[in-house]
């Protein structure tokens, strides 16, 4: 288990030390492959971990798998990407990504709320410089806003963590931040403090996730970051934040504040979906559009978690799907951006023709992310909807459908505009033709998402149900 956490760190140190710009992307690939191997081993043989601090349970498995798969694809993509961008110094980029991988693994494995918080903070600090990879004014602005807003959120999450610790400090309380002990102590926790803690933790980790109204950094950060980083941020980091919220919900549910917590999650989830719809319609920049799509999907996750039970299982399934599909979208969008040199929707047409590999992938990704069958997200969203209607959240279900419909139309207009038509007359950057180096990882992710949609192995289905049950979903 420690291998999964430590090996990326070691490789990161190596990346910082290595003077050769060419060789560093290989370290990234090595780290990703090693990590994937470690995860596969852990999946088969969870082991004991460090009692009370790090161990693998069902929700952690889901997030760890998502992160690992996404990283593997991104690392493969990065080989060609970093070679194309050899003008830029990639020491911080590669090193930062490896540290990020390690931190995300810690989040997935964390069974102690303190460790969880430290890992989330590390993800913020290590990704902020990476957003500035392009070294221009816009990406600097994005990096600053990201750093400030997310640090603020994480600081508030720390206060919430302290509140939770205080709630456990009463007579009969466990006096600790270990999830297991807190859940076991359940009713002994001081309820006003648990409630206050949940509010702060929701705000803090919700900021990291990008739930509305705390999402203001997302369009800027995802819009300006390189496509590769955008994929990892929107698929990996948000999943980690989602897991953090799920753990908090686990504790709150045990303490008796579950109902309050769920209501809050439902409200924020629906708000996120609504806001995403508002801002996607008429969006002029296709990368910012992807950011709002991420806000929407975080909303879906929050709704799933808020409804609980079967919808909770759907939420975990959706976390996996979201990671894969966002990877497809961002990597493909990155290729399109590099080829056309612009992110403005008005100036980009005919991606299907100019980029015969990435263009169709982008289109397919759009269908996947908006929940069209037979891709995975359709089934996960369906599960969430079914869960909502089954447990009496009919209004939630209807709003969910309405918002997804709006977003489908809004995104569709933009994506179809980008991919269809004749690319002649659009700006073109030389030397950025499509290649299998770009497209193969993206295709792999898409195929994985398709496979999950077509056939969901019962073991996975059980895993998601177990995850939802662990987090305290209602049966």
């Amino acid at each position, binding site marked *: 288990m420690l291998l999964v956490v430590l090996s990326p760190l070691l490789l990161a140190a190596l990346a910082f030390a290595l003077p050769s710009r060419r060789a560093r992307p290989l370290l990234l690939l090595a780290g990703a492959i090693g990590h994937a191997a470690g995860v596969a081993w852990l999946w088969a043989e969870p082991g004991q971990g460090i009692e009370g601090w790090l161990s693998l349970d069902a929700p952690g498995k889901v997030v760890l798998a998502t992160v690992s798969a996404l990283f593997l694809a991104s690392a493969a993509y990065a080989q060609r990407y970093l070679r194309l961008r050899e003008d830029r110094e990639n020491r911080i980029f590669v090193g930062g990504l490896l540290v990020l991988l390690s931190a995300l693994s810690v989040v997935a494995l964390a069974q102690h709320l*303190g460790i969880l918080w430290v890992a989330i*903070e590390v993800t913020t600090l290590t990704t902020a410089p990476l957003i500035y990879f392009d070294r221009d004014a816009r990406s600097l602005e994005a990096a600053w806003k990201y750093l400030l807003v997310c640090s603020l959120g994480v600081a508030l999450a*720390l206060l919430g963590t302290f509140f939770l*610790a*205080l709630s456990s*400090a009463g007579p009969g309380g466990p006096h600790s931040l270990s999830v297991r002990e807190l859940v076991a102590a359940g009713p002994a926790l001081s309820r006003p403090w648990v409630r206050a803690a949940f509010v702060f933790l929701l705000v803090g980790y919700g900021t990291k996730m990008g739930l509305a109204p705390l999402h203001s950094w997302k369009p800027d950060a995802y819009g300006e970051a390189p496509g590769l980083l955008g994929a990892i941020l929107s698929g990996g980091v948000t999943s980690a934040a989602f897991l953090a919220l799920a753990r908090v919900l686990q504790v709150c549910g045990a303490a008796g504040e579950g109902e309050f917590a769920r209501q809050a999650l439902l409200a924020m989830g629906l708000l996120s979906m609504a806001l995403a719809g508002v801002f996607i319609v008429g969006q002029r920049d296709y990368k910012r559009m992807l950011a709002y799509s991420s806000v929407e999907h975080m909303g879906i996750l929050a709704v799933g978690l808020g409804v609980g039970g079967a919808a909770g299982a759907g939420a975990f399934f959706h976390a996996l799907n979201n990671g894969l599909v966002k990877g497809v979208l961002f990597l493909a969008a990155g290729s399109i951006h590099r080829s056309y040199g612009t992110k403005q929707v008005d100036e980009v047409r005919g991606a299907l023709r100019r980029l015969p590999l990435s263009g169709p992938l982008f289109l397919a990704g759009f269908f996947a992310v908006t929940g069209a069958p037979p891709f995975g997200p359709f089934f996960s969203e369906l599960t969430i909807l079914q869960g909502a209607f089954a447990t009496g959240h009919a209004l939630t279900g209807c709003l969910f459908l309405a918002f997804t419909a709006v977003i489908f139309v809004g995104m569709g207009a933009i994506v179809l505009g980008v991919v269809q038509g004749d690319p002649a007359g659009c700006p073109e950057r030389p030397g950025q033709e499509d290649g299998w180096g770009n497209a193969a990882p993206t295709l792999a992710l898409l195929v994985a998402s398709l496979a999950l949609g077509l056939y969901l192995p019962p073991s996975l289905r059980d895993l998601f149900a177990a995850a939802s049950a662990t987090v305290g979903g209602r049966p």
Partner: protein
Amino acid sequence: MTAFAQTVFILVVMIDFFVLASSRLKAAIGAVAAQGALLALLPILLAPQELHVAHVLALSLGALLVKGIGIPYLLRWAMREASVSREVEPVVGYVPSLVLGGLGVMLAFAFSATLPLPTPEKHPYLVATSLSTVWTGLLLVVSRQKAVSQVLGFLVLENGVFVFGLLLSDFMPWMVEAGVLLDLFAAVFVMGIVIFHIHRTFSSLDTGKLSALRD
């Protein structure tokens, strides 16, 4: 000890007011440094009878070094690099932010008396001071325009969280405070570097100029 701790808490709140009203960045940085130094005294003042002397001293020293000396030095360096010395008129003016801050402090002090504390109370003013300082930090981050001022707001917020963490130092000594200090240092370090780049790119630290990205 209680009276002295009371004085420290009141001084911390005074410094909150001062930073809210101040437009001179040097004075504000100095005030936050003083606040950090004051907070470094608190672990010693509030130490329970069965104390782990080494831990308490280490925590105080760490807080002093990081909050009182290290980070202000970093901020002053950033100021020198960018040759800023004054804040531009903030989004929320000085008088309204002073009033808002005052309101927040008052609410914090008035209501913290009614919050039931599971553990024996260390000092009646602790929770109130912590919440007031967090509120002040939030106000500062949201309303100020210069990047250095926003970082100051973040610092003040972390100071408030640190004060709250003192409540837990009985049974969760290391993780709590070390976590706060580490977070603070790392975050401000990264922020300092980004500020340096902002100055280089925009020739100013006015985040009002960071407005190219919008919907």
